């Protein structure tokens, strides 16, 4: 185990996040001779897509699928490359001077980096249906984590609700592992087909087509799939039933577990805190960093690869990581040999095929992104959709201004999980766009650290810097 005290004060390249983008980037850069460290906060590398790839108890390869096991190769390459891979390492700060704040086992350090690749992937999109904070309701991603890392599948009456490719993948993985799903409630609006249709030819030619179709068939063969346009978790102290419907038709289904998933969005928290410029993506309904073709951000020396650069999936993430790493090598060690950039770009381009179709098809309906009434928006501070809408009506123009009135975004999560809902609600209420409303000014620490951890920063260094500045 690498300890905080084992770290060098500076590295050529710091990679943050050990999913496909981070692993591929670290491997390429280290092989080209950059001193490279990769930090991942989990017990093992892999990210969400290849979570627990080095220690998963799920041995039957069919359960998680061959796409999952492809991660093992990436992890092995990174390990063999000479990059220092540090797991259990939480990066809590990154600033525009590329100073990286990291904590390992309660000890904090500030590490200087000549280049930084942010590869912190995606987060599940908030899915604020009435009752989502009840015990017994959890995110599908959370359920997938438990399956991959501990081999556990839900028992009891289970309902999976939402949309997007990952929801269908999880359904299949649960079923293959011997789990039971009582119903899949598909929230995808049928009218999405209108926008998606233009991109169908590309999709049919892409690898997603065959895989997706197979997955859908596999799930539909075993589980009832019901299309819904509203959804509610009902219970007193815990989930008792799921209420759903379409049009005038309303149904109730007893349930012990409701798994929610509404697609994923870039995890922009670290990049925003570092001062990277972001823009609204109307197709994917999320903020994403503004990047050049090498994935360089607006802050010199900081690039963003993987799904954090905009959702494109795991295979694309690895290629993006390689491109960002090639840019880092060319900047710091132009004489080193690197793979042919054009070939990597072509692979990435192939991966992008079919994405437009998937994005338009799975675009979540307004009603599932912009809740009404007493539905909780901010769990930390228990703020409801009505409160956010009312405060917007009072003249509050953005999430930052709203904090003083509702404390929404001031709790432990700092709006890092539910910020999109707040932005979209304000935009809807004020009749403007999320781009206009903007996002939380996210500040470090990007992950909470204890006072003791902060106090553990080496004193000598603190005093030296205090004198220098």
């Amino acid at each position, binding site marked *: 185990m690498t300890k905080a005290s084992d770290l060098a004060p500076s590295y050529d390249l710091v990679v943050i996040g050990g999913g496909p983008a981070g692993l591929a980037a670290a491997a390429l850069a280290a092989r080209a001779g950059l001193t490279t460290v990769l930090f991942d906060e989990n017990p093992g590398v892999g990210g969400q897509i290849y979570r627990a790839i080095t220690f998963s108890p799920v041995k039957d390869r069919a359960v998680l699928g061959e796409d999952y096991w492809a991660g093992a190769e990436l992890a092995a390459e990174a390990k063999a490359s000479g990059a220092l891979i540090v797991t259990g390492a939480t990066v809590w*700060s990154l*600033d*525009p*001077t590329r*100073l990286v*704040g990291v904590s390992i086992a309660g000890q*904090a350090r*500030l590490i200087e980096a000549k280049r930084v690749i942010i590869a912190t992937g995606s987060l599940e999109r908030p899915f604020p249906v009435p009752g989502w904070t009840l015990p017994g309701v959890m995110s599908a991603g959370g359920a997938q984590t438990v399956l991959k890392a501990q081999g556990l599948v839900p028992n009891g009456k289970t309902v999976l609700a939402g949309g997007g490719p990952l929801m269908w993948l999880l359904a299949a993985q649960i079923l293959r592992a011997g789990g039971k799903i009582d119903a899949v409630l598909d929230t995808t609006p049928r009218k999405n087909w209108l926008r998606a249709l233009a991109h169908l030819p590309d999709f049919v030619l892409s690898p997603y087509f065959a895989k997706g179709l197979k997955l859908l068939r596999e799930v539909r063969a075993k589980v009832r799939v019901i299309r819904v346009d509203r959804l509610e978790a009902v219970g007193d102290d815990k989930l008792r039933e799921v209420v759903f419907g379409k049009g005038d038709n309303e149904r109730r289904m007893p349930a012990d577990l409701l798994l929610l998933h509404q697609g994923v969005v870039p995890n922009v928290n670290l990049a925003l805190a570092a*001062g990277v410029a972001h823009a609204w993506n109307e197709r994917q309904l999320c903020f994403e960093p503004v990047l050049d073709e090498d994935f360089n951000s607006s802050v010199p020396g900081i690039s963003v690869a993987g799904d954090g650069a905009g959702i494109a999936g795991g295979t694309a993430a690895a290629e993006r990581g390689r491109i960002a790493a090639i840019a880092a090598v060319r900047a710091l060690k132009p004489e080193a040999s690197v793979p042919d950039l054009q070939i990597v770009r072509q692979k990435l381009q192939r991966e992008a095929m079919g994405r437009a179709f998937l994005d338009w098809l799975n675009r979540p309906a307004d009603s599932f992104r912009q809740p009404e009434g007493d539905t909780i928006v901010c769990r930390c501070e228990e703020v409801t959709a009505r409160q956010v809408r009312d405060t917007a009506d009072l003249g509050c*123009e953005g999430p930052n*201004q709203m*904090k*003083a*009135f509702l*404390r929404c975004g*001031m*709790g*432990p999560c*700092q709006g890092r999980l539910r910020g999109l809902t707040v932005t979209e609600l304000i935009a809807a209420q004020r009749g403007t766009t999320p781009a206009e409303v903007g996002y939380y000014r996210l*500040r*470090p*620490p990007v992950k*909470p*650290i*204890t*006072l*003791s951890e*902060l*106090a*553990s*920063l080496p*004193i000598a*260094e*603190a005093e030296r*810097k*205090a004198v220098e*500045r």
Partner: protein
Amino acid sequence: MRTADVVVIGGGIHGCATALHLAMRGLKPILVEKDYAGRHASGVNAGGVRQLARDLAEIPLSISSMALWEHIEELVGDDCGFESHGTVLVAENETELASFRARVEDLRLRGFTHEELIDRAELKRLVPAVADHCPGGVVSRRDGAADPFRTTQAFRRRAIEKGAEVLEGVTVTGLSKVGVNWRVETSAGPIEAPKIVNAAGAWADRIAAMLGEPVPLTVVAPMLMVTSRVAPFIQPVVILRGRKLSFKQLGNGTVVIGGGHLATPHRDRNETVIDWDKLAISARTVWELFPAMRAATIVRAWAGIEAFMPDGIPVVGPSSTSEGIYHQFGFSTHGFQLGPGTGAMMAELVATGSTNTPIDGLGIDRFSQRKDPSLRSG
């Protein structure tokens, strides 16, 4: 062409308070703010409402402000989250306590009684969680704390209700004299008014420079951090003298830790870069002073951009070069409490040409009178 009685430049607590008091006097102010009201220091400071440990020159303004704070809801229609549990300046050793005693005695001779020396027992009564090595301190019992952004917004809102016009997202680009009026060039067109109040905070030197009145203003960004909720254990705001610390638990249980360690400000980009090495010093101070805080979680660190003057006290009063111009800036990291009272005083000064509140020693001419050329560079 817009016209007004007064153009107030800057939408911090000072600009908003002055606009409100001007409007209450029946004048028509237009407030011009380049971002939105409370975007910088006024909205993101520690919220301390403190008379304690102030420079003699600003004590009258501080006392008149306190009277307004204690009835803030009547003034602005919002309680601004103001709560009064006193501020305690903790002495960490006998030498410090002796210097505090001298200060309190000096204040008494001058007729100021708001600072009160306390012994070890009273310190423990007021702040039971404080470490045992502290021999006493000073308390200002009427002091307190408020929510800074909410307060600034409340002043802005009430100013508008009373007839002020507030232009946000509008930048001042030039000042010139047109007859008896000043013409204020802005990104939203010109405004003419006989009088101007420069309350532009960290950008106030640029306004002063347009008038040929350079001031030695330093742009600073004092850092703060806040913890997640911990069980209530302290009521007053606690500050130190020897080491940089201010420490306050809010009603909701979160603890705000500040004290003046500085981030790197970039005023042209509205950005600050946190200096974690220095925040670690604050963390170690808290670790020693309040052992109960060791396991607390820090959820956010930030800094607001503001102006610091070489002598650490604000610039308040008429311009020394230009008739009809008034300055109200440079509050040097302790201007929040002064906002309400300074706004009232400034409105009186602008409307009547004089004020009963002593502001001697705060004039901008104190910089041009000095001989040291290093203090004259903008």
